[in-house]
Structure formats: C-alpha cells, structure tokens
C-alpha cells in the first residue's frame, strides 16, 4: 500500500507540473491545442489524488500497521468512522486532504469555465496546478503519509480521544473545503492580471466560488466552536487561540471581498482593492495552514513542530509578492471608473464595512504574531491576553452589526435627506421602542448588551423593511399572492436576499455571543450519592453513579437531577472516560440546551466511594449561536444557488448599463 501511495503521489506531481507547462505553452501563438492537454492533465491529477486518498483510507480501515501514519493515529478497536476521520488528525493526512480537494476543485473549475472563460483558463490552470504541484511535492518528499515503519507493531496507539467526536469528524474537512476553494478565485484573479482582462468577467467567474468558500469556512469555524464547547469541558467555545484566528482571518477577508465586489460590479470602483483582497484571502488561508503546522506560535492545538515551515513560508512569499507585483504593474488598467460621490451612499457603507473588517483582521494578525514580533525585537516571547482581542473585536463587531442595518437603507451613489428620513424612521423608532422593554429584562445590567440588543432590533426591522418593499412592488404588479411575491422576490435576486438572510443570522449570532459571554454562572460541587448542591438559582442532586469497562475504554458516569424553583428541570449525565491504548482521560460533557440557557455539567472525578466532583456552568442563549449558523448557511445557499440567466437580466438592469459604458 505504501508503494501504491508513493507512486501515485509522484505521478500526481508529474501531472501537475506537466499541466503547468502545457497551460503556459498554450499561451504562445499557434499552440492553443496545448491547453486541452493541460486540462486533461488536471483531470489526471484529480484521478491520481483520488487514488492516493482512497489508498490512505483503505490502509486506515484495514489496520496496515506497517504505515507509521496508521500506527500513530488509529488502533484496532477504533470505530470505522473514526478510522476514516483519522486522515485529518495529523499533518501529512491533512495535506493529503488539502491536495485532493484542490484537485477536485480544479477539475470542477475547468469543467465550468473552459468554454465560458476560455481566455482566462491557461493561466488559471497553471496557477491552480502550481499550487497542486507544491502540495504534491510536500506529500511526496517532505511529509509523506505513506512512510513505513521498520518494526511493525501489533496495534496502533489510537486516535486522540479528543478527536473521537462527531464535530471533529466534520470540522477539519469543512474548514479545508473553505480554505482550498479560495484557491480558485485566487487563480482567476492572477489570470486576469496576467492576461490584462481586468473587466468584470473574472469576477463573474469567481463570485460563487468565494461565497462557497466563505460558507464552508464559516461552517468549519462554528463546528470547531461547537466541538470546543462539547468536548473540552471549560464551558466556552472561543478563546482567540492562534489556530482559531488562523481560520477567522481568511473568513473576515472573504466577507470583506463579498461586499466590496458588489461595489465593483455596480460602480466600477475599488478594483485594485478587490484584487488585493482576493490575493490576501488566499494567502491568509495558506498562512493558516502554515501557522498551525509550523509551530511558530504556541497554541492549544499544538500540532507539533515540523519541517514544513520554510517550504510554506517560501510558498506564501511567492503567492503574495508575485500577484502584488502584477497588480502594481497593471495599476493603469485598474483605475476606478467612478469616484465616491457622497459618504451617504451604499458604496461608502461598503467601504466602511471593508475598513472595519480589514482592521479586525490585522488586529487579529497582530495579536497572533505578537509573540514572534516581540521575540525578534526584545528576545522575550510576549503574548497578548484574550483581553486584547475582546477590547478590539467588541467595538468593531458592534459597528459592523450597525452597518448591516444601515447598508440596505442607503441607496447607491448619493442619498437625499428626504430618502434617508423616510427609510430610517421605522427602524430607528423600533430600536427606540425596544430600549424601555429591555429595561424589564436583565439585559440592561450590562449596557453593552443593551446596546447590542437595540442595534439588533434596528437591523432586523431594516431588513424586514427591505423584504416588505420588494414584496409590495411584486404584489402590486398583480397576479401573485403575498407568499408568491416573497418567493419570486428571493428567486430573482438570490444574492441580495440571500445576503439579507445571512445578515439576520449575524444578528442572531451577536445575540448569542452577547448573552453567553456576559452572563455566565459558574460553580463547582462535591457530591456523594443522594446529596444536593446549589449553583446560581439551580439545585443539583447526585442520583446515580456508574462504571463500565469495554476493550477500548473505561468509563465512569453520574446522573444529576437539575431543579429550579422546586421543579425538576432536566437530567444530566456527565461522564469521564479513560482510553486504554493511550491512557488518556477524556471528559464527556453533559449539556441541557434550551433557547434561554444551557446547563453544562462536567464530571471532574468520580472516586471509589461514589463521591463526584463536578463543575457546572449556566450559559445563557448559547443555542442561538448554533441557530445563527443554520440561518447563515441557509442564506449562503440561497445566495450561491445557481440562478437561471433569463430570470436575472431584468433585476440587474443598472449593471447592464454599467457594462455598456465600460465596454
């Protein structure tokens, strides 16, 4: 199996290199035919990577202990789905997944665009396969997943128990889908620069890819948060750890790009800016991989130091400097078609949104790299605490939230005072009306939370107004019911209304964040069977304890009755397992979720006499974080869903006009 895997990776490397050469050759006069050959090489690369990854999976499933990888991350008693997920438990496996996804995306990108964007394809293929060749090289020569052991052990040392969790099966692939999909917009941007075809066509080719990547990055981040929440047992879900930041930064940049690209489509502005954003987004995605794999920053994720650092650094420098140099050399072609007419305009709102997102990205980058910078300057590794991130992210986050409400209310180009008055009246009135109502709840104990709640109301009413105005127009055209009008409205402007749905999700996300960060109740209990203890306004009764042993692990668990105001509210069964192969304990958190609060119990210890040490958290509104994730995914799918071309034309009339003007 090792031989098959290694041979396939070498062939894949050859296919990728050939694709680069052939694609570039096809750019010279009279050699266009080479492009077809290059595209076939892309399919070949994809087929070879598929064989490689299937081989790895087969090795994991069939316990090939002669492979170092299989021995390190699996064991004979491990369940089949964990064996499959062991592929992304470590560095070579993750890189294999990266390369395979890239090969699939490159194939899809070629199939979708080879006719539609013929002129952009050669360079785009060369860039994609250049990236592919880099990863294939790493896999073949630097960190091979198919490395064999001289002495074959009888059993593997098991997958880290922390990773034996459903969310951990899904979280890394989701993140990778996002990271890798960003390579496609990057390649088309570079291609547009090289070929000097800097009109709106490259943007049309990559817009949906960016939404796709953004969506999966977001899902990956949320699943990671959920995993941390359920598995690590500290009651929280986000800690500004370098690895979390590594995923958060490209997501922020992709968010910025998705907004600023609209300004380019509508007004022909921000063209340099968008190029820079696309390049930076991809570079940050690779940087994320570099950060987590190089060991330059200490992290909870602690992947272990490796030899990859210099290679990745070189790759990042090339991916950053090359395109930036191209942008500089093409500056005259990237000149804005219009200038900003007024600060009271949609494009100005997008501009502010971009500045805030970029600001937050660089603040996060600064915090993440601070230990590296201080070590270089002073010799001491100094890190910023979580306080640093929270102080910066809070005002920026609140300002961004407010902009989601302001944006849709302000027209393009220039707003008149009368327009602003008419559109802002209702949302502002609703926000003002919500303020006294909030006084009745605990939200007002923390003024920031109160402010966020008021802004949330403002944004929701402003978005509802957008839907209402659109529906009224459709309904007035006649022949449709109100729900029919809504359906038509969304179907004909998927991106716009999908975007609004995402904004609703963002509002819900902020409500969840504000509630769960500001009002946590925490306590610890030591209970013998039958005893009771109190945390906050709840009483916990230890009702039962149990112990069990199976070949894979030794588990202990307790049953807790939760009472509030004398009424039984929930039953919780937190546990603690000891995995036998690795001798590592693992906390099994018990959570009772409801829309208002999560009761979160951790069994810290269960001793022989049945005395249990428990740690309890009551986290308000956490459920809304996960609900917001679902709303955002729903909105993202609506926005990315392929629309019929005929239906789109009338909705984007101004864009057509724009195109004529620029042709």
């Amino acid at each position, binding site marked *: 199996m090792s031989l098959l895997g290694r041979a396939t990776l070498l062939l894949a490397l050859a296919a990728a290199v050939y694709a680069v050469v052939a694609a570039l050759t096809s750019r010279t006069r009279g050699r266009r035919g080479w492009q077809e050959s290059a595209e076939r090489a892309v399919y070949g690369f994809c087929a070879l990577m598929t064989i490689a990854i299937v081989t790895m999976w087969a090795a994991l499933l069939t316990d090939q202990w002669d492979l170092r990888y299989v021995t390190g991350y699996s064991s004979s008693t491990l369940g089949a789905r964990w064996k499959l997920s062991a592929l992304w438990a470590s560095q070579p496996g993750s890189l294999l997944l990266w390369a395979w996804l890239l090969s699939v995306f490159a194939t899809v990108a070629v199939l979708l665009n080879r006719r539609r964007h013929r002129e952009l394809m050669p360079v785009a293929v060369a860039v994609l396969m250049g990236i592919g060749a880099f990863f294939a090289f790493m896999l073949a020569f630097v960190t091979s997943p198919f490395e064999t052991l001289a002495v074959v052990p009888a059993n593997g040392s*098991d997958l880290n128990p922390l990773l034996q969790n459903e969310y951990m099966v899904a979280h890394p692939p989701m993140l990778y889908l996002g990271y890798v999909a960003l390579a496609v917009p990057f390649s088309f941007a570079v291609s547009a620069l090289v070929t000097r075809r800097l009109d709106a066509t490259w943007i049309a080719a990559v817009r949906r890819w960016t939404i796709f990547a953004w969506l999966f990055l977001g899902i990956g981040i949320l699943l990671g948060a959920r995993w941390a929440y359920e598995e690590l047992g500290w009651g929280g879900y986000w800690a500004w750890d370098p690895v979390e930041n590594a995923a958060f930064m490209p997501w922020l940049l992709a968010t910025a790009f998705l907004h600023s690209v609209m300004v380019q489509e509508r007004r022909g502005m921000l063209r340099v800016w968008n190029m820079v954003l696309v390049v930076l987004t991809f570079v940050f995605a690779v940087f994320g991989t570099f950060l987590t794999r190089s060991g330059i920053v200490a992290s909870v994720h602690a992947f272990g130091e*490796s030899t990859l650092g210099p290679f990745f650094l070189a790759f990042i420098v090339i991916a950053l400097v090359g395109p930036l140099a191209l942008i500089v050399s093409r500056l005259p072609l990237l000149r804005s078609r219009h200038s900003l007419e007024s600060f009271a305009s949609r494009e100005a709102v997008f501009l502010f949104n971009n500045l805030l997102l970029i600001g937050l990205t660089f603040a996060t980058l600064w915090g993440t790299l601070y230990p590296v910078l201080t070590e270089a300057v002073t010799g001491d590794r100094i890190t910023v605490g979580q306080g640093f991130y929270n102080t910066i992210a809070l005002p920026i986050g609140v300002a961004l939230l407010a902009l989601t409400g302001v944006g849709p209310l302000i027209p393009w180009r220039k707003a008149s005072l009368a327009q602003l008055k008419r559109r802002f009246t209702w949302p502002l009135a609703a926000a003002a009306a919500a303020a006294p109502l909030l006084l009745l709840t605990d939200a007002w104990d923390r003024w920031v939370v109160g402010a966020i709640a008021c802004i949330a109301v403002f944004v929701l009413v402003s978005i509802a107004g957008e839907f209402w105005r659109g529906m009224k127009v459709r309904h007035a055209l006649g022949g449709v019911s109100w729900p029919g009008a809504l359906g038509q409205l969304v179907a004909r402007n998927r991106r716009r209304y999908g975007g609004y749905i995402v904004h609703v999700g963002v509002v819900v996300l902020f409500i969840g964040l504000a509630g769960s960060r500001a009002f946590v109740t925490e306590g610890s209990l030591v209970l013998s069977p039958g005893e009771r203890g109190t945390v906050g306004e709840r009483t916990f009764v230890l009702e039962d304890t149990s112990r069990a042993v199976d070949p894979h692990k030794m588990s202990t668990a307790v049953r807790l009755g939760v009472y509030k105001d004398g009424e039984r509210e929930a039953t919780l069964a937190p546990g603690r397992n000891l995995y036998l192969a690795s001798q590592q304990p693992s906390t099994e958190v018990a959570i009772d979720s409801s829309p208002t609060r999560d009761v979160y119990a951790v069994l810290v210890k269960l001793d022989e006499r049945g005395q249990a040490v428990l*740690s309890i958290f009551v986290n308000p509104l956490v459920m809304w974080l996960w609900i917001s994730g679902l709303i955002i995914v729903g909105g993202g799918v609506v926005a990315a869903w392929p629309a019929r071309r005929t239906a789109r034309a009338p909705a984007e009339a101004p864009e057509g006009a724009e195109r004529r003007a620029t042709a």
Partner: protein
Amino acid sequence: MRSRVRFIIAICMAVGLAGVLGVMSLKGNQQTYASPGALVAGKTYRLNATVAPGAPADAAARAQTAEGLRFTVRDKANPGTTIDVVYRGSVPDTFKVGRDIVVVGKLEDGVFQAQRNSMIAQCPSKFQAKADEAAHSGSR
C-alpha cells in the same frame, strides 16, 4: 488632488490603527513567555514548563477545591530548575507528569499563583517513535 487627500486619509487611518494596536497590546494585556528560572515577582507570565513527577493523579478534582491543585514544574531545557504552581479551574484531559503545559499567573512568595482556567496542556513537540507519544504529537 482628490486621490492625494484619500491617500493621506488612508495613511492616517493605518497609522491610527497601528497606534491603537500598539498601545492596547502594551497596556496591561501583556504576558511574557517564561521558564521557571526566569520569573520576577509581581509580573504576569505565561509559564511554559514540564510537569514534574509527583503531580497528583486526580489533578482535575483537586483544581476544583478551595486550596487548589498544587504541583511542581521543571524547566524544559534545564530540569534542575523547578517551581511550585497553585492552580484552580478546569484541567485539560492531557495533563500528566512529563507533559508540557502553559499557565498564566504571577510569582508570589516563591509560588506561582496561576489564574483560574488558564492552563493549556501541550502535546510533546517532537515526533517520537514511542507509540504512546506518537498518538499526540500531531493531533489537535
């Protein structure tokens, strides 16, 4: 002219952001990475060291008690240098003797008083062929 004004505004904003970041990262939020030998009383550190033999097996339970979990750590490079740590809060599952950890806290009367819930356990940083260690060396 217009573009020059815009350029100046952009530069000002960039400088402003850099300034804010610089000040904020200097203001009270700093934690210096340090090994047991390099601690000075009264300053906040991220102590990075190895758990020395003698750490209790029921560490997670002790950390929940009022007196806290008390254990000794030793310098990673220089095992002779040790310091006692008092810690309360949640203990990562991977905590055990010989493992590298990070705790945030201050040196008080010769004992490192760690902040609540500040402990991070790191997996061994070098790949080792020993099966037990290999399971953790590259995991997240």
